[in-house]
């Protein structure tokens, strides 16, 4: 932005803040330095339109109105109570929390927004030390769909997006009345009323592909009061499980450390000339246990249960066969 434009904008803000009367565009042209440079009415009008857009993008609330019924055109002013950040004082530990929060996002867009908030808090007199190296650091990553979905939630507008279910490549277009964006265990979800399914649904943001497009008018979406968004998401993800069975394994000496740290050793056994331990482990999810054990190849063999031994053998056979075919 040119210095001349920045100067004009600051003067415009100061003029609109200091007036109680609405100032018409013509009046603004007459008093705010910089507009006099406009060579024609058209040039002025383009300049003024651009400046108004800039002020709105900065979050400056422009009031539009007329001072009396006899006025022939609209005027502008800025209400101080809408412009100014409220009084705020933060204790050192509260300011430290803010300093940490600003560094939390792993997304340039959100980091920029948080930094913008920090600049304003500092301007309100809050002291945030940026040299303090915290002993704890946390990073939260967001997805590209986060911002458009949040905007839709806040403007109560329905959205349409392409969604891929877990383990599937098929993309289906979904139309959702979004109620909220929820973070649960560092994963982002959007919860709302799925118009296609006519039911409450939750979608993982990382599986949304392409653009999130608003559909319909803002203000259209009615969010029910009695729904707990977090419970809805948390309820549909697995909670801590209890073991369903015990497996007996053979583990080669000095191998399969990852299994050993979860196992109880119960004896010794030599298999095909290789010495090893007999071990027991608790099974929580037998299917993923089969994946995990198969990963260790000849270092971890299943003695029982039979069904686990079979699952592991199936996986290994699939691998051996597939590669041999090449």
């Amino acid at each position, binding site marked *: 932005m040119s210095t001349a434009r920045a100067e004009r904008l600051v003067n415009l803000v100061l003029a609109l803040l200091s007036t109680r009367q609405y100032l018409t565009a013509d009046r603004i042209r007459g008093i705010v330095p910089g507009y006099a440079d406009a060579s024609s009415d058209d040039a002025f009008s383009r300049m003024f339109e651009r400046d108004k857009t800039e002020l709105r993008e900065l979050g400056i609330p422009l009031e539009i109105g007329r001072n009396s019924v006899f006025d022939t055109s609209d005027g502008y002013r800025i209400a101080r109570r809408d412009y100014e950040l409220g009084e705020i004082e933060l204790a050192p530990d509260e300011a430290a929390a803010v300093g940490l929060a600003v560094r939390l996002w792993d997304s340039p867009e959100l980091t920029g*927004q948080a930094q913008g908030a920090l600049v304003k808090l500092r301007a309100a007199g809050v002291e945030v030390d940026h040299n303090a190296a915290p002993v704890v650091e946390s990073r939260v990553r967001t997805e590209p769909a986060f911002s458009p979905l949040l905007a839709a939630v*806040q403007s109560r507008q329905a959205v349409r997006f392409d969604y891929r279910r877990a383990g599937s490549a098929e993309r289906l277009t979904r139309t959702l009345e979004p109620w909220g964006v929820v973070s649960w265990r560092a994963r982002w979800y959007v919860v709302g009323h799925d118009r296609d399914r006519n039911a409450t649904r939750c979608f993982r943001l990382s599986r949304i592909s392409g653009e999130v497009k608003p559909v319909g008018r803002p203000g259209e979406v009615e969010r029910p009061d009695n729904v707990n968004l977090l419970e809805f998401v948390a309820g549909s993800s697995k909670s801590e499980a209890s073991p369903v069975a015990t497996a007996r394994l053979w583990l080669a000496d000095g*191998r399969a450390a990852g299994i050993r740290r979860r196992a109880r050793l119960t004896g010794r056994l030599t298999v095909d000339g290789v010495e090893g331990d007999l071990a027991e482990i608790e099974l929580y999810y037998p299917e993923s246990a089969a994946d995990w054990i198969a990963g260790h190849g000849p270092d971890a063999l299943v003695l029982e249960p039979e069904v686990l031994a079979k699952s592991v053998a199936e996986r290994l056979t699939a691998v051996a066969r597939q590669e041999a075919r090449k």
Partner: protein
Amino acid sequence: MSSTDRMPRLLALVPYLLARPGIRIEDAARDFGVTPKQLRRDLELLWMCGLPGYGPGDLIDLSFEGETVTVTFDAGMNRPLRLTGGEATALLVALRALAETPGLLDTDAVRRAIAKIESAAGQAQPSGVVVGLPVREGEATARTRGVVQQALQARRALRIRYYTASRDEITERTVDPMRLLIVQAVGYLEAWCRRAEDVRLFRLDRIDDVRVLDEPAAPPPSALPTDISDGVFSPAPDQEIAELVLDPDARWVAEYYPVEEETELPDGRLRVRMRYGDESWMTRLVLSLGGDARVENPAHLAEAVRQRAADALARVRHLPSTLSQ
């Protein structure tokens, strides 16, 4: 800061200086993340601005003394602009995430900060974002985290028994704790490892045993914090690249691990390129996918995977049948 950020800074500068009479220009520049030279340019610009009339008594007035600056007339710009919806959301959601993160810091202070900012932000208060538990941790890991935090506070060294998943091995190490990190819901201890003589990240859920030692934590000056801006996996350029074709059931691999390239193939399959440091780790991953992933390259990895599967199937036949009833 780019030029588009100049307006927010110009609007914040006068109230900022009003709150800090006689502040050093250098200190103000640091708070705004600009050079002192840029800050002086901003001040010169503001000096030319003021109220209609624009006479000497209408313009913003600043007094410079040595390297310091004081506002003597603010032309009515004495408070910062309120937070935009986006700014309030970015800050408040981050604070809520911190408040929900166990053991990160004094959550009471975080909640007080949230309440104060919400009240100051007024109508810009965000809605529609809920932050739940940002950490996945079981009871054992929570206990480990407690001990690690204790050591960090007391600045003591730790003795840990650690499971290194990439090499599938357990080692005993003495480490000098530096920070506790939470990245993508997983807790890590960042510490100087005396065994590796380097800074290492230890996943809390892979620390099988932890003991606070009497000796002080003394990371050497060369121990610098890890840059986690790109996550905790930092593939080294000299690592090998595996080319895998994932069936639909194995597509989660591309979501879970960092992959460099994804190509959609017919029938919902996905070709990915993935860096790996340790071949035994990559072999375990492919074996565990049980045929849902195929190694296209390198050939020696494909051969290692096939060999391990064949060896396992052969060895199973030698298990005594009496034991597997």
